């Protein structure tokens, strides 16, 4: 295991103004190489203008077993969706 390169998660910004999106993962010995590898693996077809990489071990994730307590309470709270307001015509598309 110690001879394997660490795993990196790759985030690509598709165009200016959009947020970086997670596109996949890859292996690389260091951050600089991870960016080069991400360029070669994930931007071959002109997909991006910016790359972020983060070593996968630094991502803290929610646990699947906590799904109920974490997410179910919000299912019944439809009043949190801003769908009960009348939007004036002159505001246009939001």
């Amino acid at each position: 295991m110690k001879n394997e390169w660490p795993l990196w998660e790759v985030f690509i910004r598709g165009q200016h103004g959009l947020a970086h999106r997670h596109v996949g993962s890859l292996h690389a010995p260091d951050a600089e190489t991870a960016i080069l590898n991400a360029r070669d693996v994930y931007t071959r077809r002109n997909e991006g203008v910016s790359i972020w990489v983060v070593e996968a071990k630094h991502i803290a994730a929610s646990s699947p077993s906590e799904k109920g307590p974490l997410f179910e309470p919000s299912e019944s709270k439809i009043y949190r969706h801003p769908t009960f307001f009348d939007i004036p015509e002159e505001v246009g598309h939001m």
Partner: protein
Amino acid sequence: MAEVDKDKLYQFLLRMGDNTLILGHRVSEWCGHSPVLEEDIALANTALDLIGQTQMWLGYAGEVQGEGKSADDLAFLRDAWDFRNVLLVELPNGDFGRTMMRQFLYDAWSSIMLGHLQKSTDERIAAIAAKASKEAAYHVERSSGTVVGLGDGTEESHNRMQAALDYLWPYVGEMFASDEIDLAMAAAGIAPDPANLRDEYDALVGRVLDEATLAIPAGNYVHKGGRDGRMHTEHLGHLLCEMQWLQRAYPGCEW
């Protein structure tokens, strides 16, 4: 642009295009065989960049030659003695380390050469160089990083990279050996005299090899004969055999 002998310009363009063609083919041999997936894709990308550059160089060469030949004709229907690539690029891949060392030694030259060619008095050459130099800048960033990583890596990777450098270094000098074709290009402002690029090259390569803890081998012997076509290595014929067989067996075949 100053008047220049058409045949000399044709030879110069063959040198540029044959370097990228033969190295592109060599690098493509790794496709599906690289040590890790990320390197496999990266090498395939590099090979495709080089073949793309070949289309521009040999396409222009065919126009200058004026016999109606396309880049494909020049790539697939010439025999070994008509190729004008330096010997360095036709050498077999060896292990991954040797491939990356060869790539670095070529990329360093290519990135410097293309930088100068962007100022060519031949607008077409300047335009090709402008496009190719962005690719070359990426290639040299990648290959120099790998040379440093493996050179200054484990004992085994260091030894393999030093062995690769020892094997390849005597082929470096050919990239800087000027002849009458180079002098004609330099006089017309089309291309720099390659001999004048050597200091820039030594500075770049020396910096990377230092960081990689690798030593340039002693000795001044230089293998030559590729860029003037006098004598290629025995490896070129085998490469062409594989690269050209389809057009040779099925002339004019398209798909």
